[in-house]
């Protein structure tokens, strides 16, 4: 008798649990971002409604990411993929093709290109070819860590996620709004820190920072690579060293995947200092999310240029 009652009770409890709305957590939207900056921004916009993974790590050169089948597996399971666009993550097309995920095929509802509406810098005005190195015919694609562009990027993410899950649009919009308010507050601090060094010149290894530098009133005076993606020639380095000395430039910005030893040698020769900064979320220790990465760069530059 007791046993029968227990069984009935368990069955009733299970039935009740199945009937109560929200008793079971709704499955999260599975999103894959091609680079960690976009993972962080998608997490900010998606909140608890999404589960985001990145195809690359911040310490990698996104131009030359190796297309691994493990990327294809992530994409196979994904409801949406967030892409940088402008040629930075063109390799993602190969990974998507190998994922056999119809939703992510070109033109599919799960493709989210965050470069829509971005005011692109360094768009070539003359005919380009590869004698100029790895030039991007559509312009410089390294815009994701410019906090001033976060509103546009997050709007694209909201629109993309809402295509896949229209019922969550209001939540995505609210998350975006909260994130931008937080970012706005940090922006005031960052501007305060950067105001005294506005107009300072810096040298970069690869032209990754133009949006960020422009945003905070800094000037990219030269690049160690005379042609993007091609190892620098000795003559070019001699010229850059001379320029650094002549213009009393204090800082060389380096990505983790650059030849840091070479940057240090040039800096030493020219009387400047090379800094490995967060070229992406996760590129350096402490730059674990979008705001932390910008924070790291601002603090590094503000100190170095003072």
């Amino acid at each position: 008798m007791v046993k029968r009652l227990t069984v009935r009770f368990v069955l009733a409890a299970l039935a009740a649990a199945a009937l109560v709305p929200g008793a079971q957590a709704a499955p999260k939207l599975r999103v894959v971002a091609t680079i960690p900056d976009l993972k962080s921004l998608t997490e900010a916009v998606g909140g608890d409604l999404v589960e985001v993974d990145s195809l690359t790590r911040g310490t990698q050169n996104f131009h030359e990411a190796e297309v691994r089948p493990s990327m294809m597996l992530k994409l196979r399971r994904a409801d949406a993929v967030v892409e940088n666009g402008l040629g930075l993550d063109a390799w993602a097309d190969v990974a998507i093709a190998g994922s056999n995920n119809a939703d992510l095929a070109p033109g599919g509802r799960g493709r989210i290109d965050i470069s829509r509406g971005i005011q692109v810098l360094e768009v070539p005005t003359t005919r380009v070819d590869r004698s100029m190195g790895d030039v991007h015919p559509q312009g410089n694609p390294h815009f994701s860590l410019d906090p001033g562009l976060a509103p546009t990027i997050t709007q694209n993410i909201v629109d993309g996620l809402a295509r896949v899950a229209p019922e969550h649009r209001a939540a995505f919009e609210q998350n975006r709004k909260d994130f931008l308010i937080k970012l706005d507050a940090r922006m005031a601090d960052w501007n305060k820190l950067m105001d005294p060094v506005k107009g300072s010149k810096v040298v970069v290894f690869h032209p990754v920072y133009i949006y960020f530098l422009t945003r905070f009133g800094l000037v990219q005076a030269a690049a160690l690579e005379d042609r993007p993606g091609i190892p620098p020639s000795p003559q070019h380095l001699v010229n850059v060293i001379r320029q650094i000395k002549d213009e009393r430039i204090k800082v060389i910005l380096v990505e983790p995947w650059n030849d840091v030893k070479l940057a240090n040698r040039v800096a030493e020769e020219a009387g400047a200092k090379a800094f490995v900064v967060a070229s992406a979320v996760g590129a350096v220790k402490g730059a674990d999310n979008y705001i932390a990465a910008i924070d790291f760069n601002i603090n590094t530059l503000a100190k170095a240029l003072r």
Partner: protein
Amino acid sequence: MRAFALTVVALLLVATPALAQDASALRREIEQLRQQLQGLTERLQRLEAQPAPPPAAPPPAQPAPAAQAPSNPSTQMSPVSPTELARPRQPFSLYQQRGAGQLLFDIGIAGDFVGNLTQKNVEKAGGGTFAGRENRFFPREIEVALFGQIDPYARGELRIESGEEAAGDEMTVHLAEATLTLMTLPYGTQVKLGQMRNRFGWSNAVHEHDLPWVDRPDVYRVFLGEEGLVEKGAEATWVPDFLPFYLQVLGGVFNGDNESAFGRGRINHPLATGRVMAFFDLTDTMALQVGASLANGETAERLRSTLLGYDLKFKYRPEGWLHPLLTLASEGIYSIRRVERGLDFDGDGIFDAFQKQTKHRFGWYASAELQPWRRWSLGARYDATQYPVAPGWQWAVEPYVSFYPSEFLRFRLAYKHTDKSHRDVSDLLGNGGSSRLVDELLFQATFILGAHPAHPF
């Protein structure tokens, strides 16, 4: 009534000049608007016809750039209608950056030149790696590739190539690949059809100019011919989403035109192919890919021929490196082929009966490549293979060094020593030729022009 009519006439007489003035003002306004619209249309057309202009100068640093963010971002949201949500968004987004009059697909050109130096007797026997082209420098593969989205559902790829096939021969242009891939099929499936390099093992699908060695491994050349397995037909792939690792299951049906292993060339007696490939991320820096392949068809003599293959590939790419430091690879083919052997009982040189036999043969290779610097890599490959029908075997060792001035240009120098158990039939031409022991110095120069999609792993 008369009074009413008079009043109306009087009012009309008074109002007409005023109406005329209004109409004239309206016309002027409309004309102004028309001119404005025309100006804007022309401007828009000009802008659309040109690439996006660069900013004249970097935008000045604005205080509080995030102030660009609306104080209430949600108010900036563009309302999306249900119709808009229902249809696929940006169906041709790949081409939005392109200007008017530009192609809606990509074009890539690959040039692959090979040179070799070998012994005189090998040249006479035509027994070098590039048979009939010993002691020559020649364009092996000049390829024009056109590829892109056909529509939101399918992708097309066309490769046309030319190259020297024998010394002195006129070079002909031929179709290397032409495929159509259906990308929006359900349940993680895709179908590719046309003429293609088959996904048998991992290196068979790789074009000559993209191989990590100067020449295709001996096991492929011996069992499938110099070009490997290139067939006409269709193959379908399935990628399950419930496994903790990437697995691709492939099945295909082809004509079976490859004369080295099959040759029946009929879709009603097809060459059936299959492959299972799994990939494991061992760590962030190390990965392993393993695969097993099958090809089963009929020879021109209508006898069964089956190839079983394995492939392994391991890569170690230290954190932050732009290239792998170490790549290890191995592939092997086990051939089971029915053959007909002539029996001459009376020794008159004429076969008196035919006997069917099954030949079991095996070949494999192992390769290691080290790339300590971005521009330089060095490696070696060891080949050992039996012949699919004839008795005997051969082994070879091929150390090489590659230099990459850039991602799109490569020079490679290799030395290959081949040791065969028997002299080839071609050695018996009576011209003093022999290719039992072959030493070759191989040189390769490869360039890429235009678009070239990344290769997976």
